[in-house]
Structures are given as C-alpha cells and as structure tokens.
C-alpha cells in the first residue's frame, strides 16, 4: 500500500460501526470483513507493514459493491469508495491484474473499433446457446452452467450497435453531446437510440460522441489504474475538444466517472486535469437535461395505456445516491407517463450488480438483485425503469431468471414512447 492519500483517508474512520447498518453486502456476509470498517482496518494493517497476503486483502477489497451507502451514512464522511478503489489499485500493482481483464480494459474497451468487433464475435457465438427466454424486455439466453454464473442469462446481442446504426455524418456535430456508453451502444442500442431521439426532440442539435473509449469505471473498480486513466484522459481530451454545451449521460455510472472519479485518476496541474474540470462542468444526467430543455412541455396529455402505479423507478446507487440525482428522474417519469408512475417498493435498494462484483460472485449478486426485483414485483410494479447501464443489465437478468413478465427499461425508452406515440 503506497498511495500517500490512503493514510489520511483511513485515519478518519472512528471504527464506530455505522457502516454495518447500511452495507448492501453485510446482510449476506454477516462478517466484519464485508463492511467499510473492516476494509479500512485491513488497509491500515497493510500500511503498517502487517505481513498479510496481498492477494487475500485484494480479495477482501473486491468483495464490495461500491454502492456508496456507507460513505453517505458515515458520520465522519470517510471517503470509502475512494479508499477501496485506491486500495485495489495499489494491490493490483502487487498481485497483478488477471490477464483477461488487462486485455478487456486496456485493449478492447479503450478502443471503439475493438469493442465493436468483440460484440460481433460475441453475438455470433451467442446464437449457439441452447436456452432461450423471451422476456418483456427482449430475448435472453441462458448462460451455460459450469462457467461460474449458474442460472445467469444474457441479453441477445444486436447485430448492429447504436452508433453503427447512425448514418454517415449523422449526429457528427451539435450543440449538445450525447455520451451513450458501451452498454447502451453495444448491448441495448434501443436505449442509445431512445436517448438520442428524445434529447434531439429538445430542438437542439445533438452530436453523438463517437470515438468514445469506455468511461473507464470498470477498469477503475478493478484496480486497473493504468487502463482507467488511459480511458479517462482520452475521453476528456476529445470531449473538451468537441466544445459541446451540455454533455448528456444516459448512464449514471459513466456520469459518476466524469463528475467525480476522474479527479482521483488525473493529477492536478496537468493539462488533462483542466480538460476534466471543463468536462465535469458540462456533464449532466439524462433526466436533468430533459427537465432543463423544456422537451417535456411538448408531451401530450398524460397517456392512457399503462395502469396506475405500474411503472416504478429504481435508484441507481451512483446516480441517486452519490450524485443526488433521484428526484429528477421521478419528475421526468411523472410527466412522461403520468399516474402510471408510482414510487416503487424498495426503490433505493442496490440491484447487486457492482460491475465486476457480478462477475466475481454471481450467486450473491443474483440474490441481492433477485430480491430487489421480487420486492418491487410483489408490490405491483410491472415495469422497472432506471438510468444506469449496470442496473439495466442486472435487473433484466434478474427478471429473466425470476419473472420474465417484469419489464426493465431505461427512462429514455418511456419518454420516447410518450413523445412519439402515434
């Protein structure tokens, strides 16, 4: 553990135990090692030269959803997410990053072209999978058992990504920039499109950010600082050069990356830092942009169709929690779908995705997510809407596993429906 900031950051932890009361993972683990206080103790021990096993400490730090609840509840405002990510990055230097992750984050996700090729290959391979599950939000395949994700389903990958589907020169420049993000480009292009068309309905010209590298969050949470910094620097440089007004993010996690996390990757005083500040100033979540753009004023009367209270909103941890953007999405929903929107049971429960957490410990991730969807469905929610790519991926999988009639959508899809309803 060499990060000079870690000592000061961990030194503020009073070991009081508040983190135990809010931790998403604690009820699953019922062990101190799961919660912030335990992780801080481990990092402190490592810093004081306690001869631990770096791989085991890394394992403990990885066992965290980074949902940020502890950080928000902490009476001392200890920056737990930053501590955990810094700890992971430091340890990654000692124990290394698994080769598959290095290639994925450093090579594939850093390059839009490589990501596209990878998706095509995966889409082709996917057709060989035997189990098909039609769900309310599209076809899912059953993931082959024995590969560590027992019961997992994966969405049918599209032949074309959203950006690929744009015409040549279409949405190349504009007053507003849309940062679609990998998932809404390659996995759920219909979300990318809905976001694009609804933002465009504001009357402003919209550019879709094309040479986007991945936002870098997956690499960052895996402790792969180098790849994360690479993505972040490339993105802020290109984004700033494009001189957009607002930069709109349909995905809360991508937004968090640009609003907060880049600043712990890019050092102060460098040119990239200035780029990052300029980008952060313009970065807005999808719902806030819609509200400020006036596009919702053009909606027809509250639509019929969906029944009262059937549509709920799931709070993405990063967006509603860390960035405090929960009310905006709700406002958008009330205006787009009227009384069909109602506060959902367990709206602010974490979906259990946690990025790489879901890969590392699928059974736990699925228990947390399955419970989330079940709580909502039991209370009568038929459509779960949200605004983060990880949450959409996770909850669509959960619905496919437990109740395929539950539809999981991005709020942009509902807004799109409302705006362009025939």
């Amino acid at each position, binding site marked *: 553990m060499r990060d000079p900031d870690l000592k000061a950051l961990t030194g503020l932890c009073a070991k009081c135990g508040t983190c135990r009361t809010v931790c998403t993972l604690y009820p699953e683990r*019922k062990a101190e090692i799961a919660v912030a206080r335990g992780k801080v*103790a*481990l990092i402190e021990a490592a810093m004081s030269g306690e001869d631990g096993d770096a791989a085991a400490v890394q394992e403990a730090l990885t066992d965290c959803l980074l949902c940020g609840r502890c950080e928000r509840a902490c009476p*001392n405002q200890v920056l737990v997410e930053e501590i955990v990510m810094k700890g992971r990055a430091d340890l990654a230097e000692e124990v290394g990053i698994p080769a598959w992750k290095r290639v994925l984050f450093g090579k594939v996700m850093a390059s839009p072209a490589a990501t596209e090729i990878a998706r095509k290959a995966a889409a082709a391979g996917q057709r060989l999978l035997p189990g098909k599950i039609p769900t309310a939000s599209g076809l899912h395949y059953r993931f082959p058992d024995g590969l560590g994700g027992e019961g997992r389903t994966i969405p049918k990958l599209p032949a074309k990504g959203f950006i690929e589907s744009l015409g040549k020169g279409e949405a190349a420049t504009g007053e507003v920039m849309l940062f679609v993000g990998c998932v809404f480009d390659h996995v759920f292009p219909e979300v990318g499109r809905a976001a694009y068309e609804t933002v465009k309905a504001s009357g402003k010209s919209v550019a879709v950010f094309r040479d986007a590298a991945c936002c870098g969050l997956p690499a960052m949470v895996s402790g792969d600082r180098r790849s994360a910094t690479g993505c972040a620097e490339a993105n802020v440089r290109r984004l700033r050069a494009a001189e957009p007004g607002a930069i709109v993010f349909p995905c809360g996690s991508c937004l968090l990356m640009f609003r907060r996390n880049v600043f712990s990757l890019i050092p102060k005083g460098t040119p990239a830092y200035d780029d990052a500040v300029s980008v952060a100033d313009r970065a807005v979540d999808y719902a806030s942009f819609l509200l400020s753009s006036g596009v919702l004023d053009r909606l027809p009367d509250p639509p019929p169709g969906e029944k009262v209270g059937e549509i709920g909103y799931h709070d993405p941890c990063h967006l509603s929690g860390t960035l405090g953007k929960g009310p905006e999405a709700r406002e958008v929903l009330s205006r787009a779908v009227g009384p069909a929107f109602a506060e959902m049971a367990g709206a602010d429960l974490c979906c259990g995705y946690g990025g790489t957490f879901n890969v590392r410990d699928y059974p736990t991730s699925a228990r947390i997510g399955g419970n989330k969807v079940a709580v909502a469905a039991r209370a009568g929610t038929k459509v779960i809407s949200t605004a983060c790519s990880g949450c959409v991926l996770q909850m669509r999988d959960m619905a496919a596993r437990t109740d395929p009639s539950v539809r999981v959508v991005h709020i942009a899809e509902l807004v799109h429906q409302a705006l362009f309803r025939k």
Partner: protein
Amino acid sequence: MHADALSALGNLFGDRLRTSLETRICYSFDATRKTFLPDAVVYPINAEEVRQTVLLANRYRFPVVPRGAGSGFSGGSLPVRGGVVLSTERMDRIVTVDTENLYAVVEPGVVTGTLKEEARKKGLFYPPDPASLKFSTVGGNIAECSGGMSAVKYGVTRDYVLGLEAVLGTGELLRTGVATAKGVVGYDLTRMLVGSEGTLGIVTRATLRLMPLPETAATLLAFFPENRKSADAVNAIVAARVTPSAMELMDRTAIDCVQALMPVPLPEGTGSALLLEVDGPEAQVAREADLLTEVCRAHGAIEVRRASDAQGRDELWKLRRSISPALLRVAPVKLNEDIVVPRSRLADMFAFLSDLSARRNVRIVNFGHAGDGNIHVNIMISGTDADETRRAEEAVAEVFRKTVEMGGTISGEHGVGISKAPFLEMEVGPLGVAVMKRLKACFDPNGILNPGKIFLDEAAVRG
C-alpha cells in the same frame, strides 16, 4: 493457540471458524481504535455452539472474547490475550415480542435499533437508546449496561433486563431472572451479569421489558453562552418538576467539531448548548416544551429552537449524534472518559475541566448526558508527542480523582474494559476489588472469559 484446539473448533464450526489474518484483523479493533489480534474468529448460531466453544476453551485453555458490534469505548471486545473472538453477529433473531405481557425475547446479536423498531411497530417501546443504537447489539448493551439519551427519564439497560440465558466460564448454561413484571427468588444473578463486560458469562438470550410507546415527543435545542449557564438550566428544569426524556449538553468545542461536517447556524455568542426532549401525551408535551423554553430563557439561553415533527427532531438530534465520531477531526487520538457527578455538581465539574485544560495544556472536548450528570470528557491528542500524551494521562487521573471526590463514578456507561482498569480500585476500594475477583472465580474459575478486562493487566492496558 494449540493446533488441536483449532481443529476441534473447525469440527464444530466448519467455515464459520475463520483463522485468516484478514479476518482476524477485522476483529482486532473496537471503537477505542486499539488493536489486538485474536487467533481465530467464530460465528456461532446458537447457545449450544457457544457452550461447546467454552468447553473446548477449558480443555485447551484459550481465551474466549464475546463481541457484538465492536462499538465499545473501553476495549471490552478486544482480545488482549489472543484466543477466540466469539462474534454474536449471526445470533440476531428477535424470538418473540409479547404484546400482552410486555416483554421481548432476543438473541444477543440483535441490533438495539432493530429491536426498538420491531417494538414500535407493535405500539411498544424499548427505551434504552445509546447513541450507537443503530449498530450496537443488545448483548453488548447488556454487557456494558449501556445508557443513552433517555436514561434521565427511563433509566439504563439494566432497568429493562428481566432475565438472561448465559454460558458461564465453565461451559454451563445458566438461566436467570423472570419473564414477569417482578421476581425476587434468590440472589439477583441477572443484575450480576448486566455490566459484567463478558467476563462472567456469554449472554445467549435475553428477556427484555417493554413499555407502551409514548404518544408523541418534542425536541428543543437551546444555545447558552457558557457551560455554567447550561448546567444551571439543567438543575432548574429538574427543580421545575419536569422530567425530560433527554437532556444533552454540548460545549463549544463539541459543537465546533460537528460544524466542520454539517454546519448548523449558531446564534452569536454560543458557548454551550442543551438538547432537550419531552415525550408523552400530546397536551402534556406541548405544555412541558413551553415550560422548558421558559426555564432556558430565564437561565440565559440566547436562543431556543423547537421541533415536533420527526424530520425536524431528527435534524436537531443530528448535531448531538455526530459529535462522537466527528471528534477525530479535532485530533487523531482521544482519551475518552465518561464520568458521572451528582447533577448539582455539574457546573463545578465544568469549571474544573476548563481549568484543567489550561493548566495541563491539553485540548478537552466535553459533551454528554447532563440530566444524569454524565459527562463525556474527551482529551484530544496527536498520539505522536510523548510529552502531550503524558500530560493527557495525568489529566485523566486528575479528572477521575476529582470525580470520586465529588461523590461520582469514573464510568457511567462505557465500562471499565482495559481503559479504566488502572482506576478500578480508586473507586471501589481494595475490598471491592477482592470481592469482585472472588465472584469472577466462581463464574469462570479458569479465567476463560474475556481475560485482561476490568482488573488491571499491565500488558493489556498498554496495547
């Protein structure tokens, strides 16, 4: 620890025995932030497993240290002589809430706040409310006889423990007390176990008294120019024959450290604040809140704020609840004491403390349960300056001497643990210590349970 002992524990607990360094580190601390590594951690799920653990401990002679949430302020759950930390985290069931006879039966790992909430849902009230109620456990509360904000009206944990089930140091399972409103058969073993800091028995089940939930409550935050004025107001309130359900005092240093985290607008000239709460039937609450406001004004309050709805009350409370952890922003090490003096001597004690702070040149932050005469005296130091540490330790000794001299006690609720062990005899005398040691030998002849606590153990105190 003996390899045979570990393998026997392995047979008993399977993967609920953990011996990795990482897990041991996670059970090496409590809220004192001192650390002692255990040799192993076990997570029992029932009394029988606790009993088997203690039997093995007698056979192989290893210490067993019960641990709830590890939020203790005197080092109670620290494994100062290694051995096994027995975590009650997975014994967290509320067995019954009896709405006819007004009691609850719970396992020791139940979080106090969870019990209060379950009771509330049934219109009932479990009054003890340590500031740590959201995370500390019933087992820990019983072992420390924790108090809380409402102690001034409702008493402390002891007053709500009707009966216990506990594994003694011998491995025998003892049942004490009753599940009825009263009971006087034989010695009061229940009270013997309450406050015994895990040194006499490991509580595996508790029967706790409940009350009807008060109808409503109101909270007041009164700002005073100095501690003496707040202390006078406290005594005046008692004299006015109102029993608030909370009377918390914060001095300027305490308010300032919370301010850094969550600014609360303060009236000009604030040097001290009182947080007051009254609960009961609606009309009475309104009348008493008016009366308290008047009394505070009459005793020099600069401003009195009042809230009756849950959210507003929560806001006012936040100031008080955030102090303890926020102290770390003042200095990295706190010597945290919780003395109690007769209420009428509060003002004298505050005067003594401010003089002491100047005389010994150490920073002291004071807050606490003024209604009980219970002051949390926090001496804040860097921990890296040997001379400062020495001055601070001398200051602590002076505070304790003064407290006993005033007819007070050196710990109102945090317990002796390791931090107050050197001062035990100063308060209870040599015969007191001797009788306690005889009792310890009777409950735990081989010294298995939480060794190194309460009684002086030089190695443990140093940490």
